[in-house]
């Protein structure tokens, strides 16, 4: 039971704009890795590259899974999801006109997850009681915090091994940010997940992260091998605020 993600020299962009300039990073089994940086620096693009939604022009992304190596740059999003990688996308991307429960059930679309659907649904409702209360409500009519919970729960419904979370804090009040981040930690421990979390909120992210990278302008500018290393580094402020 081993999982690893190895990203090497990834270049990617949209049209003529390059958003990533040779990004390399590693994630090992059961780690929580934070990808830190303010908006527009390429965090989301990297997430999309892992998911096969943006094709890197160069570099490799290799998912090691129980001894087998999968080159994600050659797989479709569906195939990547089927390997057990799930993304909680930026902006949550719920299906607003479907109910909470329908959203969750869609999360279990991948064949492997369909078998355990009852168990996973029960888990999700236990982990997020508010979702059970509102399971018949349309996803679009819920508050931002609830929507974020739903987005995470939906990703969990696919019974992933590697969970990518993109900017869970956006648009949430500080107290909700903190509880969302705590929830991710809780879930990670419970399911034995490996987590890559892109986040701007430095302090919240490193609260649950084992280590982190800082990405500025499409390049990894700092590889913090431990939380302590990140916390003590004054560079962070400089990278964040451009001073």
């Amino acid at each position, binding site marked *: 039971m081993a999982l690893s993600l190895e990203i090497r020299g990834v270049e990617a*962009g*949209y*049209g*003529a*704009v*390059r*958003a990533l300039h040779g990004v390399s990073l590693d994630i090992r089994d059961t780690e929580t890795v934070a990808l830190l940086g*303010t*908006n*527009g*620096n390429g965090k989301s693009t990297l997430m999309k590259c892992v998911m096969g939604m943006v094709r890197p022009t160069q570099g490799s992304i290799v998912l090691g899974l129980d001894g087998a190596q999968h080159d994600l740059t050659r797989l479709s999003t569906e195939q990547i999801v089927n390997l057990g990688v799930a993304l909680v996308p930026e902006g949550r991307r719920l299906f607003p006109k479907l109910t909470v429960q329908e959203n969750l059930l869609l999360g279990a679309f991948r064949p492997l997850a369909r078998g355990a659907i009852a168990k996973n649904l029960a888990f999700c409702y236990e982990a997020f009681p508010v979702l059970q209360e509102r399971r018949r409500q349309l996803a679009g009519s819920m*508050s*931002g915090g609830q929507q974020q919970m739903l987005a995470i729960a939906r990703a969990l419904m696919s019974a992933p091994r590697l969970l990518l979370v993109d*900017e869970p*804090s*956006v*648009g949430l*009040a*500080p107290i909700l*940010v903190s509880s969302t981040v705590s929830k991710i930690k809780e879930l990670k421990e419970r399911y034995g997940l490996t987590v890559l979390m892109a986040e*701007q*909120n*430095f*302090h*919240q*992210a490193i609260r649950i992260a084992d280590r982190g990278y800082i990405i500025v*302008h499409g390049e990894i500018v700092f590889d913090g091998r431990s939380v302590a290393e990140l916390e003590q580094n004054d560079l*962070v*402020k400089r990278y*964040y*605020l*451009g*001073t």
Partner: protein
Amino acid sequence: MSALLQVAGLAKRFGGFTALEGIALDVAPGERLGLIGPNGSGKTTLINCISGALYNDEGRIAFEGRDITRLPPFQRARLGIARSFQIPKPFRSLTVLDNLRVPLEYAARTRSAHRRAEDEAMRVLESMGLAARAHQDSAGLTQVDMRKLELARAMAAHPRLLISDEAMAGLSGAEVDEVLEILFKLNAAGITIIMIEHIMQAVMRFSQRVVCLDAGRIICEGTPEQTVANADVQRAYLGA
């Protein structure tokens, strides 16, 4: 000196979600203002309200002392408020030159001869370094050129106030410098500029004054240095 743009008590809600609340902001003529804030803090909503793409629920907006709160966007454009869009929205079926003629003919009111509008458009394109692309279809431009076109089109409206919405996102360092240089030049020509930007270095270099939004409110206002040093701003970006 009286303010060019005055925003007072502005609020905007989407359903139950409050995107902006109690926004008060004065922009002086000729000023270079940076508008920053983490993602989802309401920056784009604010400029949508100023340019008229959205109507605010509360508060008032005045431009050159005139209340424009209820004016449709095209009239605001004619009064001298121009903007560029975060995701470029060129008029894809028109050539680059004709893209500029639209604001020239509608907002800047260069109703004079056919030729003059064209010359004027060429002049703007030259100043943006886009002259060589004048007769190309705008849909085929590269990202950098598309962003320049976005600015050029805004400029062609002969604005008093230019709102630049993330004109540099995704550009390389050299390209960022290029766009910054253009903005400095415009400012030198007397145009007031509000710049929304994620690239901090650019904001810091460009702005005389920086306003930081977080969760729909203004949390800090000051010089770039003051803003960066501000605890609230740091909290907004780095979290608590």
